[in-house]
């Protein structure tokens, strides 16, 4: 039975209407894992009960039009004779508005039906930049002038650290990848980044069994004072590096032990699933991490798009579903909000290679118990284009504002430099 729900309109300058939708059925969710919104499951003594944000970056510029499909628009079919998706091949979200999901997103459709997924249509920013690097910088810094300034996540953790007047844990932000993304670098708070937990350590010990123990002795001492000035102030540069070395060993111990435990549920194959499985294991181990950052590439579909795009969407959807199944199984589901974005959408008209070129506005997805389920925002007009591309209806910083203010409880104005009206994506109950 398809649930009926009200589609909410939200434009950047209008006031959010607090219409309450008819919530979709929760029949498929195991009762024990459902927590009332806002109630933390981490109430056992010593367990962190801070809320977690997982950011999923879909790299390459995900083709929003073939992801969240406006099958009611004739222009869509005219502009994409070889790659448009037929209504019969879609998972319909809103028959009246003519919106459906690419069928590769079936796992996300499941989550949507269970009130665990929100689709935000037409997200972008003014003067869209169609360069991967430049636009990604914009999303990472919240600065449309070309990605100047600190990362929005790093900045948020800086603000959190200042507000709570205590240094955040070294693992406050964990990024899976060789280099930490720009978004994660704050002025003071720096992220932990690794491709593979086994590389998040000194690799010299691999070269001979005798090296590890001595390395440990030298790196786990911590700091009383400057070696040249024993008993002196513990705040010398020497003391700082000794302290940081110990922090690093503690972090690597915790992270590697967590990741080694694997997951309790099974995950599909694929790079994103691997990353989210690692994230799940770290959450299960009770790491104090507040933000996790993962990424899936392959969305730059300039040619022969249909199969490749479907495959990437399928990987995205199955990974996120498995992740939430794992969270439910370990009793942490209510703590985690997941947000998926891409650096831009793609052109309305297909190109001559049965693919699409860089565009502007596109959809975002949010997942979790705390989201306002349904579709937010109307689909951008396919007729009234902005420089040939879909015009944005929601500024992405409004989504950041909602996530920061309403979920993370971090003042978005301090992070983004000004007040953005939060998009109506988080349930009013948190």
């Amino acid at each position: 039975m398809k649930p009926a729900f009200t589609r909410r309109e939200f434009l950047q300058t209008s006031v959010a209407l607090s219409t309450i939708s008819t919530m979709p059925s929760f029949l498929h969710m195991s009762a024990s894992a459902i927590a009332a919104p806002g109630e933390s499951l981490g109430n056992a003594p010593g367990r962190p009960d801070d809320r977690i944000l997982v950011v999923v970056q879909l790299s390459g510029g995900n083709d929003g039009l073939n992801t969240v499909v406006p099958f009611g628009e004739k222009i869509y079919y005219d502009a994409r004779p070889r790659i448009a998706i037929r209504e019969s091949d879609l998972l319909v979200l809103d028959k009246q508005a003519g919106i459906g999901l690419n069928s590769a997103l079936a796992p996300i459709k499941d989550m949507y039906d269970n009130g665990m997924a929100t689709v935000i249509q037409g997200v972008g920013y003014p003067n869209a930049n169609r360069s991967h690097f430049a636009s990604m910088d914009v999303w990472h810094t919240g600065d449309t002038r070309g990605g100047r300034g600190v990362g929005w996540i790093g900045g948020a953790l800086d603000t959190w650290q200042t507000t709570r007047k205590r240094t955040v844990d070294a693992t406050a932000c964990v990024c899976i990848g060789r280099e930490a993304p720009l978004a994660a670098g704050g002025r003071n708070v720096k992220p932990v980044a690794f491709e593979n937990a086994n590389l998040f350590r000194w690799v010299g010990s691999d070269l001979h069994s005798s090296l590890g123990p001595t390395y440990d002795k030298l790196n786990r001492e911590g700091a009383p004072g400057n070696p040249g000035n024993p008993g002196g102030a513990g705040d010398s540069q020497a003391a700082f590096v000794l302290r940081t070395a110990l922090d690093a060993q503690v972090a690597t111990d915790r992270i590697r032990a967590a990741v080694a435990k694997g997951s309790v549920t099974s995950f599909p194959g694929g790079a994103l699933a691997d990353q989210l499985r690692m994230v799940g294991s770290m959450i299960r181990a009770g790491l104090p991490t507040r933000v996790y950052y993962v990424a899936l590439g392959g969305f730059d579909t300039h040619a022969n798009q249909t199969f490749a795009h479907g495959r990437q969407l399928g990987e995205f959807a199955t990974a996120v579903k498995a992740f939430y199944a794992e969270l439910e199984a370990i009793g942490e589901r209510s703590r985690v909000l997941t947000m998926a974005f891409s650096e831009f959408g793609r052109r309305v008209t297909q190109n001559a290679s049965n693919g699409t070129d860089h565009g502007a506005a596109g959809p975002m997805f949010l997942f979790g118990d705390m989201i306002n389920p349904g579709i937010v925002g109307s689909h951008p007009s396919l007729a009234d284009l902005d420089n040939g591309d879909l015009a944005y209806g929601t500024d992405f910083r409004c989504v950041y504002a909602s996530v920061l203010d309403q979920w993370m409880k971090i003042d978005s104005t301090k992070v983004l430099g000004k007040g953005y009206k939060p998009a109506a994506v988080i349930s009013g109950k948190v």
Partner: protein
Amino acid sequence: MAGEFSMKPVSSHRFDEAAASHLLRRAAFGATPAQISAVAAMGLDKAIDYIVDYGGIDAAGLPEAEVDPDIISPPNEEERIAMRAARRQDDQAALDRIRQVRLIREGEDRQQMGDITQWWLARMISTPRPLEENLTLMWHGHFASRHRNVRDSYLMFKQNQFFREHANGSFADLAHGIIHDPAMLIFLNNDSNNRRKPNENLARELMELFTLGEGNYTEQDIREGARALTGYAVSDNDFEFRRAMHDPGSKTILGDSGTHDGDKFVDILLAREACPRFIAYKLYRHFVADVDGEPDPRTQGCINQIATALRRFDFQIAPTLKFIFRSEHFHSEAVVGAKIKSPAELLVGTIRTLNTPVRSLSILSEAMDIMGQTLFDPPSVAGWDGGRGWVNTSTLFARQNLCAYLIAGKLPFNDGWTQDEVAYDPMVLIADMAVPTPTKVVDRLLSLLIPAGVTSQRRQEIVQFVEKNSESIRPGTLVALLLVVTAMPEYQLC
């Protein structure tokens, strides 16, 4: 101790191997034991002259950078006409084609920037004039612009050559030159600074970050300074003064009134007392000690003396550096071994000190990114923070693993036994030892690599490590020992 904050010259008999090692570490990215001995033998004054007055050292053997000046450029007249026509006709196909071409050019430009980055790293590693590259890097961080925004690798290269040319020369020449530098003018939007609609970006950063420091000017001074800089623009990879855009009227900057142009503006700034003090502060932070926030009064006293010297030497960097390097303060216990190495100092210093193979420049370049110092891409116009900003939970492993890569070839990114095949023979480090015992070898390496020394307990740990693992000091033993020492937290200091 009385001498600790004295800028008076240290007595020459104190210039031993340890002092020479410290000087080379701070000025020249470090040096091998043989090089340290040679420099120590020169005596304090000659050693400093040798390192600082590097102009006479022949660097002709270093490879030239292969740079295409036309790899990318703003659309020319023909292209602009085509774009306007396509827009007017709403010819999306044509606009798409134009955008495609642009994206390809930008890709090629990024590729060239990567090549130039590797060229510069190679130069830092092999130059016989290491202070030249050290200073070039310092000026790059001081007059910071970013390829990410400038998006023209040739202009970034041109700027790099400009810094190199004047590295140990006159700061006044650098300040005058930077307002004519195409990369900087583009980065700070001065190419659109015109009399009708002034853009204050360059004027502000010129005062705040390049010459005076915060709090030494008013917003009004910035506005007037921006007017002085109108018309300072770029054309065809070169500076161009656009008279029609320039505001020729009278401006009052820091109390000085006149029909100032950009160069007169710079003259006004150089004349301020705050200027040599600010540059002295920057030199201090780069060569002497990490300073977080406001310096304490005694440190400020040293900085003030450096400022006086800089003014007395008419903004010449070379004699000012000699003044610093000769001082008791520079050689004091509080300074030696108490500064956190930048990623460049760690990478280049490890190779130069231990004479390890260079291995893959592409991996080294990536390591620089991971450690937080992407050449040609500092985080902002304020350059790199430095100091404790370099070392955190993530970068610490990256830094240690970089050393393991250089010494043993262990690739940092692969989870297996993949190794770079070039072997490293470290025996040269102890070649002159008649009887290399574990204790002697450990002490030799610790004095080479850990200038502030280690506690006796930690030293004992390392000696025991050597004794337990080999009967004699073979290349494998030395490699293992180097791996352990470069993985010590203290190795992050210089």
